[in-house]
Structures are given as C-alpha cells and as structure tokens.
C-alpha cells in the first residue's frame, strides 16, 4: 500500500526536486552564491514536500488500502473511504458498480426462479394427462397396452427426475433429516420399479435389516430408485438378480446394491458421476441422460452420505452407499 502510494506520487516528487534544483541553479548562476542559505532553501523545499506527502498519505490512506487489497465480498464496497475527492469518487464508483451488479444478479435470480417454477408446474401439468392415460389403459392388458404402459412408466420416471433435479437447487428448504428405516426405503424403491423388474426379468434379492439411519426419506428413495433403475436397465436379459443388502462397517452402515449386468468400462468409471456423462453404455442403451448418477452423487453429498461405485465390465456393478452414524 505504501509502495503504491510512492509509485503514484513519484512523478510529483521527481518534478518537485528537479524544480527546486533548477531554481537554486538559476539563483547560483545569477550570482547569489551563499551556499548555506541555498541549502537551507533546498531543505525547506524538501520539508514542505514531505509535509505534503504525509498529509496526502494520511488523507488518502483508505483509498490506497482499498486499491491494493482484493475485494473478497461484495459488502466491502460499503466500507467508508476517506473524505478526499478522489476517495469519494472511487467510493461512489464502487457503489454504483455494486448496485448494477446486484441488479443484474437479481434479474438472473428472478429469471432462474421463474424458470424453476415453470418447470415444477409443467411437470405437474404433464402428470394429469399421464394419469388419464394410466386410468384408461389400466383395465386392458393386450400387448400394445402393455407396451404403452411401459413407455408411460419411462415418461413418469423422466418427469420425476426433472422434478428432483429442479428441487436440488432449493435443497436446503426441501429436506428434513430424521430416522429412516433402511428397509422401508429400499422396499419403496423396489415397489416403484415393480414393472421394470418384471419386464426385464430381473428380480430383487433383498437382505436388508430394519436398521434406522439418519436421512431424508424422500430423497433417499430417489437415490435408491436411480441406482436400482440403472441396475435393472444394465442387467436386462443377462443378470438374473439384483442383490441389495446392508453391512455394518467401522465407519457406519453400508447399503450395497449389486447387479450382474454389463458393468461399466474402466475408462468410464471415473466419470460416471459427472453431469451429462453417458459413456459407452449410454451409447448402447439410448435412453441414458447421464443425469441419474450425477443427481445421486449430489443428493448423497447434501445428505451427508458417501457413494462409491465399483464395476468390472461384463461382470456387474456394485454401488455402495455409506451412512455415517
């Protein structure tokens, strides 16, 4: 900060000294050759300059301080600066900029919120036609209707995912941690995927104890749902069973969801939790959005659980969700 001050004032100091020396030189040349008097004059000049610099520094201290330090939060802009004109101008400038910036952010935020509300409403609106279709075909069971129902299940799942993805932003207001029965949550997720299991001739094998964990039931079921859906999808026609069991570990309790499906190629394994990453399997199974596991990871992080995935291509995938006590 002192360095900036001197660098800023350097031309003034330089010109001042040159000026002094020049005047003294002219006076000397003019025949006034009293050395001590001239040195005294030089000293006076420098003394005045120093006084000015000190005064200047004191009155503009905050100004230089502000200029040298990075702003780390928006509110710092409102810290008062010195009363000197340049300081005041800087302060005004910062405030004006801050105002504009905040306005822009608010606009964006408003737009984002509107968009979110729209998505939420839209999803709910789409559910009504879906309900109508469900009701219409519920009593029929010929092949075509079954096929339509299957597609509708996919639609419903997709809508559900959109809803959860949209809610993720407002997660803090939308979750409620309480003791949840692991078994109840798993059973719920299994129930939601009943038709998918049957259709793909994959069956669950469940060995979950009824232990309680701290979590949010709705979000937890969403997580299980995603993992189980993946398990079914990628073991259709290959793996006969998806085993779901829990284990007591040193650091808490693990829930393991294991399938014997196609597995994930080693090169893709690191990136499965990235948003929009579909990988090799995504190219084969065209319905991947690449969002499922990303959301799983995000939700788990927010709930304070840990999720790991292990897989050997061609042998199956194991997803481990760790709950800390």
């Amino acid at each position, binding site marked *: 900060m002192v360095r900036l001050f001197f660098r800023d004032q350097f031309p003034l100091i330089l010109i001042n000294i040159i000026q002094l020396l020049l005047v003294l030189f002219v006076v000397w040349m003019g025949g006034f050759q009293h050395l001590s008097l001239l040195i005294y004059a030089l000293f006076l000049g420098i003394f005045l300059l120093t006084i000015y610099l000190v005064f200047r520094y004191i009155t503009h201290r905050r100004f230089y301080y502000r200029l040298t330090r990075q702003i780390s939060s928006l509110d710092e802009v409102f810290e008062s600066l010195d009363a000197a004109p340049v300081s005041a101008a800087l302060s005004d400038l910062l405030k004006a900029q801050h105002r504009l910036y905040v306005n822009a952010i608010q606009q964006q935020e408003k737009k984002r919120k509107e968009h979110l509300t729209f998505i939420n409403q839209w999803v709910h609106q789409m559910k009504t036609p879906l309900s109508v279709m469900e009701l219409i075909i519920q009593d029929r069971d010929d092949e075509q209707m079954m096929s339509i129902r299957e597609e509708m299940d996919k639609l419903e799942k997709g809508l559900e995912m959109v809803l959860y993805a949209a809610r993720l932003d407002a997660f803090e207001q*939308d979750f409620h941690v309480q003791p949840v029965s692991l078994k109840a949550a798993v059973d719920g997720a299994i129930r939601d995927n009943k038709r998918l299991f049957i259709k793909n001739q994959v*069956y669950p094998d469940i060995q979950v104890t009824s232990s309680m964990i701290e979590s949010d039931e709705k979000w937890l079921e969403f997580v299980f749902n995603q993992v189980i859906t993946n398990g079914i999808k990628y073991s259709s026609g290959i793996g006969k069973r998806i085993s779901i069991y829990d284990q007591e570990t040193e650091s808490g309790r693990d829930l393991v969801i294991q399938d014997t499906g196609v597995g994930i190629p080693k090169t893709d394994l690191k990136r499965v939790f990235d948003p929009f990453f579909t990988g090799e399997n995504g190219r084969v199974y065209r319905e991947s959005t690449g969002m499922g596991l990303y959301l799983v990871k995000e939700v788990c992080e927010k709930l304070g659980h840990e999720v790991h995935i292990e897989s050997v291509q061609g042998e199956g995938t194991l997803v481990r969700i760790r709950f800390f006590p």
Partner: protein
Amino acid sequence: MAKILIIEDDPKIASLLQNHLKKYGYDAVITEQFDAVTEVFKQVQPNLVLLDINLPSFDGFYWCRQIRQLSTCPILFISARSGEMDQVMALENGGDDFITKPFAYEVVTAKIRSSLRRAYGAYAPKVKERVVELNGLTLYVERMELSKDKGLASLTKKEAVLLEELMKRSPRVVAREVLLEKLWDDQSFVDENTLNVNVTRVRKKLQDLNIEDAIETIRGAGYRLVPNWETS
C-alpha cells in the same frame, strides 16, 4: 350405497373415476361447478369426497375447509403435487388422506373403502363384495374362497389373486407379466418360480372341485383359463 362426490377439474379423470367407482357399487357424482363446491356438497350430501387441489378459482384446501364447516365426512385429496408440504397442508386443512397422481384404481378404491369403514362402519358390508363368476364357478375374492356346485375350496391370497385374473379374462390368455405384477406385493417379490408354483397350486384346488386341465399354459405368453367344466 355410499355416495361419493368427485371434485376434479380434469373432466377425463373425473369421468374415468366415476365409471370405475360405479362398477364397484358406489354412487359417484361429478360436478362442474368449481366456484360453488359447498352448494354442490349440500345438494349431493355425499358420504365421501374426492378432492383435487388445483381447481379453478379457489384451491382444494380452501374447499376442504369450507366442507369441514358443514360435515365431517371423509375427504380424500387427489393431486399431482407430491411435495411433503402439500400433503401436510391437505391433512392440516381437514383432509383424511392423500393420493398422488398418477394413481392406480386399486389404490383409490382401497382408500375409499378404508375411509368409509372407519367413518361409518356400517357401510362396509353394504358395498358389494367382489365376486367373480364364470360358468358356475364362483370366486369370492375377499373371502378367498372358491365354490362350484356344493364344493368349496379355500385359497391363499396369491392363489385368489391369480385365479381372479384368469377368470376375469377367460378365455383370453393372460400374460405372465400381468400375473407377476398382480402377485407382487409389498412384502414379497415374486419371480417366475413363485408364479409356476402358484399356478400348480391353483390347478390342484380346481381339481378338488373336479375341474381338470382348465388352466392351459401358452408357451412364451402366459396362461389361459378354459371353462371346460360342466355346469349343473
């Protein structure tokens, strides 16, 4: 006969529900006057109300509070909203239960039945018992009994479910998937083997009633019940 008022602004859902409930012996009434629900309520005097949340002008919560000033009859909410907050609101505003769209007919009927039972008790027996009849063979679904002529066989829950489907669709083929789905309940997950075992058991029960080879296996598709027995 229990009277049910359906307040749902989607005309298709309303009429589908109405038809379904009528099949089960309820007197279902739908309304299009969403601005005067209390008037309709007074006029219809229902035993139970199915109420949507998203309605034109006032929402379901509002109407629920209004109805509560007139009656304590069961009110079941039906809504696409699935947030916890909405469910809490629904119950706080005087609702008795909450059904999320899309829903299955079975869920609605089961919840209606349970609410009626709790609220009126006496209504339960007045609602028709579910009976499936085919060529002299009678299945009492809820009692899980099967009778023909003088003979009577009692079934397990799974057998009853299985036979109900087969009888209802006879002589059409019922896909294995459909049967699996029906058998699959919350506690037990059903695989192909369980289905086979249960089909075998049902065949045996039919044999007890002197019905032979009525259930045909259609390879790669499913099963079919052929009413090949004599009626006396």
